[in-house]
């Protein structure tokens, strides 16, 4: 199977891409927040959701490591035969593409709401998509390098915002640790946290391009750990600053940054968050766009993936605009339908692939036996 792409990424870049992808829903719109009733009990959701993601990501990486020289599309075709492979492969690609255009649309809506209110959203979407398509067309090395460069900066900015709101924090909002409606309150927010980890299906596309594919497992787990720490820090700061207003803001990280006012001179640092927005979402969108593009070329056995870049880019803008009516619609989907869909989707895909891999193995084991017998 031809990998099509010659690029290689280092372990650190792989880690950066993973962390960044999961941080995007935290720094743009944060759907999990709207599902929480009591801000004081919000942080356990981050832990529960992330811990539930550990077995999921383990399965994804484990499968990838069985075929370290192939992408997920490659081994799907091999495991499930031409028809099943085509079907499951295109589902996976649709999942990647869906993430790509959702992120693009979210970024567009965010910029339109928080930064450039008068500018038509299409102007931003088209120019961003053009940039992303160009970057992905050149291979994934560029994007990975940018991710590696930006991730320390992005984490630094997020932590800076959190730390500089200390004068607004009221620790009494972190108590009591009490669930008025029972532990059932934890289900939806945790599921929402978990649902964003399903995006780690993209690891399947990245493993063959890793310098050292074996390092994928510790790196993925390290990424989850890093994210837990960032999520909890952010969540606790949000609860202490906003209290009951916790779930009232459209862009929590941006709202938090807008609050910062230290000594009358260190303020209006929300522009830092807009940098984080554009780089974070841009890199994530590019990653999933690249995965769709290369995956599609591999699925259809094309000789080159580059001609797909601009058509797919145009498609990304069009579908991104058409699939959600508004930011509220997008939010609605992300807090309900998407949670159920993405979790059940990933379970189905993974079980299909694992069943395929087991039966293939039996088949392979069975043939020599049959010869002998």
């Amino acid at each position: 199977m031809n990998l099509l792409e010659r690029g290689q990424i280092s372990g650190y870049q792989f880690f950066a891409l993973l962390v960044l992808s999961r941080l995007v829903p935290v720094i743009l719109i944060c759907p999990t927040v709207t599902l929480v009733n009591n801000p004081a009990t919000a942080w356990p959701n981050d832990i529960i959701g992330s811990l539930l993601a550990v077995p999921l990501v383990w399965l994804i990486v484990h499968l990838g490591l069985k075929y370290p020289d192939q992408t997920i599309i490659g081994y799907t075709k091999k495991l499930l035969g031409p028809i099943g492979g085509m079907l499951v492969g295109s589902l996976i690609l649709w999942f990647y593409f869906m993430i790509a255009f959702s992120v693009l649309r979210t970024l567009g809506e965010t910029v339109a709401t928080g930064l450039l209110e008068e500018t038509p959203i299409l102007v931003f979407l088209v120019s961003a998509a053009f940039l992303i398509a160009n970057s992905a067309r050149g291979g994934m090395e560029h994007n990975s390098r940018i991710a590696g460069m930006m991730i320390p900066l992005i984490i630094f900015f997020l932590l800076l915002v959190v730390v500089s709101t200390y004068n607004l924090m009221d620790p009494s909002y972190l108590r009591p640790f009490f669930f008025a409606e029972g532990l059932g309150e934890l289900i939806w927010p945790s599921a929402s946290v978990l649902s964003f980890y399903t995006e780690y299906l993209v690891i399947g596309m990245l493993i063959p391009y890793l310098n050292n594919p074996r390092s994928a497992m510790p790196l993925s787990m390290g990424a989850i750990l890093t994210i837990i720490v960032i999520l909890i820090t952010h969540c606790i700061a949000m609860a202490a600053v906003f209290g009951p207003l916790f779930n009232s803001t459209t862009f929590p990280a941006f709202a938090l940054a807008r609050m910062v006012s230290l000594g009358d001179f260190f303020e209006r640092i929300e522009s830092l968050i807009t940098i984080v927005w554009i780089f974070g979402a841009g890199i994530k969108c590019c990653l999933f766009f690249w995965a769709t593009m290369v995956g599609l070329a591999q699925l259809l056995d094309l000789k080159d993936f580059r001609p797909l870049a601009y058509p797919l880019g145009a498609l990304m803008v069009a579908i991104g605009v058409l699939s959600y009516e508004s930011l509220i619609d997008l939010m609605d989907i992300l807090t309900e339908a998407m949670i159920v869909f993405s979790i059940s989707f990933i379970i189905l895909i993974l079980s299909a692939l694992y069943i395929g891999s087991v039966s293939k193995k039996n088949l392979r084991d069975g043939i020599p036996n049959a010869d002998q017998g």
Partner: protein
Amino acid sequence: MRIRAKVLLICIILGCLFSSGCWDRVEIEDMGLVTLAGFDRTEDGLIKLSVHIAKPFAISGAGQDIIDEKPFWPVTTTGHTVFQAVRNLASESPRQVFWAHCRVLLIGERLAREANGIAQVLDFFMRDLETRNNVRLLVVKGASLEEIMSARFELERQPGRGFEGLSKVVETRKSTSLIPTLLEFCRELETDGIEPVLGAAEIVNRPTEQPEQSILHDTVVSNSAQISGMGAFKGDRLLGWLNDSQSRGVLWVRGKVESGIIVISDPLEENRLISMEIGQTSSKIIPQLIDGRPVIKVRIELDAVFAQTEGQFPLLSDEETWASMESRLATAIRNEVQSALNIAQEELESDIFGFGRAVYIKYPREWQVMKDYWDEIFLTLDVQVEVLGKIKRSSLAFRMVKTR
């Protein structure tokens, strides 16, 4: 090919340079910066908005002559909703109104007294992109919005800056009022078991002085504003006023007292007064459930500085006098808290101290039942106030200047 790419790149970069901000570009010369805003309800039920817009050409820079012109433009509009009133400014202001520099927001008494009145103003400010969440809120007491908006401060050319400075100074030097930011007020509004308070802005009529024949004075400053006490709310509805000492009583319980002066009488000679300056303070609300009924204990601790006296005794005389002064200090503070408690329980019937919240934090399970009846429970709530005052220093002198 190479050259074409380079030309294209240069064109794109140049294009970016000149099209920064896309459609949202507003030149600073086209902006009118709001420095102070006030909302009220008109008699015919509309929202009234009154703003001061800075006049940049009347603000003198360093080294320039002082321009003899008021550096702001007061303008008033009305509308059915808050945002309509705000946007109606566009029909009067030749410059696009810009809100990010508005640091103080005044709420008229009429609007504050109606249910859901302030909430709509807050919604606009929380939602809008230009406004800041750290704008400070003040409620107007005993004056119309026009009167308070026409108040001038001798020390600040922009009344907006005057109110901002005043808010800070009152909070940190006197602690007889609390001027919450938009965030703090909204946060408190939504929190169970605590009702908000808001600093009250009042008109002071200064005696009209003989106008000096100077180019600097084209008008006589007659009205000025002061912050005195607080308005007490239930939800977002203004219920009544607290005077300075009642306000500090509330702030003692809330743990928001930063400084201030407590006057006590001299233990050695009753008709002489001693001033104590409040230093470090801390307070704690300790709720307890006795037979299912909440009982609140408030523990206030503070350090005071012996700041001024009319008495003649040598300060280091004896421990008894010292202890007596400390207990008088404690009593004075307890009285402040008690007077606040009385007005809150008997007149306002609003839990502005946050006792309910303290109960919720300690007994969340019981609170679920109690919260529906809290308004009634609060009226007869047993509150014990315990004050521990320590006089730690006596500033730069040990004894008073002697008169022979």
